[in-house]
């Protein structure tokens, strides 16, 4: 295995992009990343695309061929691979791309993530999201995707692990950073009260506890670390990318629902590989598809002991300049959550942080940055650690 670097990042604006098609978004992110890497494009050996459900959102399967075709890669006949892993599709696509380069099979690999969600009505979109849980025994029984996270939140509050206010404060934190990100869907700070008073979705969670429905794409260019310098001075070393799985349905985990074992496992493996601990991370992107998921992530990743993350977020310890900067991009909540793009966009954000390219969101002296991406109800998780060189 050889060391791998990220030499280019490209992220489109996230949001309700009525005038942009799936293919247009994919091309835009890919072209930006390749240009950022200083490549012509002919160097690319393979491409990976994280996408959750183009088949249902836009009735288009085989989007690997679509993107290869529209980015001109099909004329060079390089392998193009679509990766689906629920909400972790982007993170897993990134890991596949990393392994492709690390193994020596490919030298230059583009990994993209894209989702076009707004071509469908809300009820239909929600039914796609519900299908990332157990379609037969959760969604099929009337249990919606947000209600699963709501049941986790209810239990967390009941067990005294976090208050409703602490959970809600995660959205305030994400919006605080989102206001600084020109590509974010919501560039506006919010107050805790706004979250607490937002319309109910699945009690106790309200609209502002939930990531929005978004369109968007993100892309990265990977190459062997030893070759990175040939193209740019501005690159990030991939210190570790790990992945872990768990049961599809939340109920299959018995009473253990206020923590995601997949996140814990993936994080432990990543820290071990790099030889660091959670305390060595200065900035992290975590999967806050729901506020409560963000709180759980901070604990499962070891940034805070169980039962203390909520307090820390409410106290502002997770803002830029705090104990650890969490979701400087705005996270899923404020930057937006085009599902397949999310995991790739998270890595793009931390790559920009370790490369010192995060503009107004730049955290000082970043040595290690982490991204955590989950699929379903913690049924899959990837953890990426990047290192500044």
């Amino acid at each position, binding site marked *: 295995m050889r060391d791998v670097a990220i030499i280019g990042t490209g992220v489109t604006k996230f949001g309700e992009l009525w005038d942009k098609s799936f293919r247009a978004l994919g091309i835009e992110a890919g072209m930006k990343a390749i240009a950022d890497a200083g490549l012509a494009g002919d160097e690319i050996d393979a491409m990976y695309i994280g996408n959750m459900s183009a088949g249902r959102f836009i009735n288009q399967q085989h989007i690997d061929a679509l993107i290869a075709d529209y980015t001109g890669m099909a004329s060079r006949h390089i392998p193009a691979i679509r990766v689906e892993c629920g909400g972790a599709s982007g993170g897993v696509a990134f890991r596949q791309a990393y392994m492709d380069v690390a193994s020596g099979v490919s030298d230059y690999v583009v990994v993209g993530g894209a989702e076009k969600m707004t071509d469908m009505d809300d009820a239909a979109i*929600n*039914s796609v999201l519900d299908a990332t849980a157990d379609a*037969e025994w959760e969604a099929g029984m009337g*249990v919606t995707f947000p209600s699963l996270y709501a*049941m986790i939140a209810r*239990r967390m509050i009941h067990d005294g692990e976090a208050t409703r206010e602490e959970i809600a404060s995660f959205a305030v934190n994400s919006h605080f950073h989102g206001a600084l990100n020109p590509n974010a869907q919501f560039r506006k700070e919010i107050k805790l009260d706004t979250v607490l008073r937002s319309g109910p979705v699945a*009690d106790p969670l309200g609209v502002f506890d939930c990531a929005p429905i978004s369109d968007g794409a993100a892309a990265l260019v990977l190459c062997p670390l030893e070759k990175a310098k040939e193209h740019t001075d501005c690159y990030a070393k991939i210190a570790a990318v790990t992945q872990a799985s768990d049961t599809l349905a*939340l*109920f299959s985990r018995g*009473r253990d629902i206020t923590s995601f074992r997949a996140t814990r496992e993936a994080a432990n493996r990543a820290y071990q590989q790099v030889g660091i601990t959670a305390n060595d991370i200065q900035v992290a992107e975590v999967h806050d598809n729901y506020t409560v998921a963000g709180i759980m992530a901070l604990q499962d990743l070891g940034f805070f002991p169980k039962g203390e993350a909520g307090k820390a977020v409410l106290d502002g310890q997770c803002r830029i300049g705090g104990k650890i900067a969490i979701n400087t991009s705005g996270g899923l909540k404020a930057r937006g959550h085009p599902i397949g793009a999310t995991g790739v966009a998270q890595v793009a954000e931390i790559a920009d942080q370790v490369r010192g390219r995060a503009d107004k969101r730049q955290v000082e002296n970043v040595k290690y940055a982490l991204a955590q991406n989950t699929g379903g109800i913690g049924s899959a998780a990837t953890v990426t650690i990047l290192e500044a060189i």
Partner: protein
Amino acid sequence: MSSVAREWREIPGRYNLVGTKCTNCGRIFFPARTFCPDCRRASIGKIEPYALARTGTVYSFSVIHEAPDCNNMQKPYAVAMVETDDGVMIEGQLVDVDLEKIEIGMPVRAVLRKLDADGKAGVIHYGYKFVPQ
């Protein structure tokens, strides 16, 4: 329209909470599994049908306000994680209940209700929901 066969083959679980039990280690599965994830190979040939208790207690719950189309007539409606008297966790709707009186630990009982229908002309799907005991 969903597949008739897909619903039909799940009738034992949907109507009567029939899962399976690994007779090698005693673990109960719902929905039914044909293979024990703990015993793996040792469980082959040792998985038997097992009907869960129809009674249990609420482990957690949520009141859903953004409902799928099939539940539009009943929103807001409650869902719960229920720990059955066998100690198995399952999820389902909690109906015929005063929403503000639901609490963790509340005893509930499984009943058969309509879950969904394939439009006005298609098949009707029945399955378990919970009511207060």
